[in-house]
């Protein structure tokens, strides 16, 4: 298996707590960039989400700028009302029409990341009350990437994890508290780095 090059996460309803839990479990030396599409209000333009996450996790979190480089351990979050896409080594933004009423769309993020990173990508679907991310996660798995889904039993809303599991039945199902430690392991920074 190739070394992990990127982690892509998608979250919707209840996502703030879930994202915070996952990121909070990652060590300061987590050596892989992370991109996140979290559904939120178009007008939530105050950087509150970013401030909150920075206060509660060891990694640096910022709202993505166009063409910002994907540096190890840097967490880039899709700005409200933009799609976040992945190019090789950097992100790109778009204001194309919302997909399934969502901008950012998790599917858009996952699909572009799968294309750019192939089997070096880990995709994570967290809590949510819709089915965004299901198609994208299947594309990640198709290209040899690692698919992880939050155990629907531990999700604030289970619709999104359920839909992801329906599209990718072989995905790894993990309780919310386990996701961070497993990501550390995959990235080779936690205990028992896998090879």
């Amino acid at each position, binding site marked *: 298996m190739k070394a992990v090059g990127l982690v892509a996460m998608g979250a919707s309803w209840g996502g703030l707590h879930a994202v915070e839990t996952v990121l909070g479990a990652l060590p300061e030396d987590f050596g892989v960039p992370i991109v996140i599409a979290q559904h939120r209000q178009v007008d939530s333009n105050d950087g509150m989400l970013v401030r909150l996450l920075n206060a509660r996790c060891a990694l640096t979190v910022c*709202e993505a700028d166009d063409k910002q480089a994907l540096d190890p351990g840097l967490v880039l979050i899709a700005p409200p009302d933009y799609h976040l896409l992945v190019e090789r080594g950097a992100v790109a933004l778009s204001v194309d029409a919302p997909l399934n009423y969502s901008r950012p769309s998790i599917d858009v993020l996952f699909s572009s990341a799968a294309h750019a990173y192939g089997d070096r990508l880990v995709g994570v679907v967290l809590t949510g009350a819709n089915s965004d991310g299901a198609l994208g996660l299947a594309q990640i798995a198709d290209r040899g990437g690692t698919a992880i889904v939050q155990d629907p039993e531990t999700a604030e809303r289970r619709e999104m994890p359920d839909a992801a599991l329906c599209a990718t039945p072989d995905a790894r199902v993990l309780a919310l508290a386990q996701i961070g430690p497993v990501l550390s392991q995959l990235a080779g920074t936690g205990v028992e780095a896998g090879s």
Partner: protein
Amino acid sequence: MIGEAHDESRERIEIDLLLEAIQRRYGYDFRGYALASLRRRLWHRAYGEGLETLSGLQERVLHDPSCMDRLLRDLSINVTEMFRDPSFHRALREHVFPLLRTHPFIRIWNAGCSTGEEIYSLAIALHEEGLLERSRIYATDIDDGALDRARSGTFPLERMQRYTENYQRAAGSEAFSSYYSVSGGLARFDPALARGIVFAQHNLVTDGSFNEFQLILCRNVLIYFGPKLQEDVLALFGLSMTRRGILALGRKESLRHSTHADEYEPLVERERIFRRRR
């Protein structure tokens, strides 16, 4: 896996050939566009045409100009709204208009105006600040169809509630509904707003500088360009600006990685409004 890698490079070849075909046949050059969005849009058109490969799209585009029209629309339409990012429009009034006011004639370029939502927002704000009469606004886009819609000054009525909220948050001082009349599900904006607007086709990739402006607005257009093309367009803007001209980019667009960064100072950093140092 070898098969995967092979598919990947095959698609890359298909994209390269398609873009070259478009460039040679129609003169539109999309080769410097950012790949991730471009790829999505190309596939969107391919599926829309009932095609399963980008090679198939290449064949149809070469033989059927109407397919090129549809593709061009897919590649160029930016979905926007009136007074998008109200805080940006407030910053225009508070920090940019006072600088424009010092000029007897005001020249503004809205590059990549798409269907015109931003240009009408700007015209309304200029009108309320008493500057519209002496302003000439060039609204350009690559897509003729989008320009026609922009020229018509009509927008879907169902969007007016949202635009009204934006307008109020952008420090609008009138009743927003006083700027349009309603007919058949459309809001038609007062033609007086468009009197000083020149709509023209202009391709940022292949066309040159055509005037000097005190203010250039180019919001959420550069995000579709790759780094090299972004540099070229920023150079074009430099050539198209008066001394101490102002450049307004999208909320998440930056000059940070550009070789042109030193030529500008932030005017309103948070809103990505920059001013030339000289």
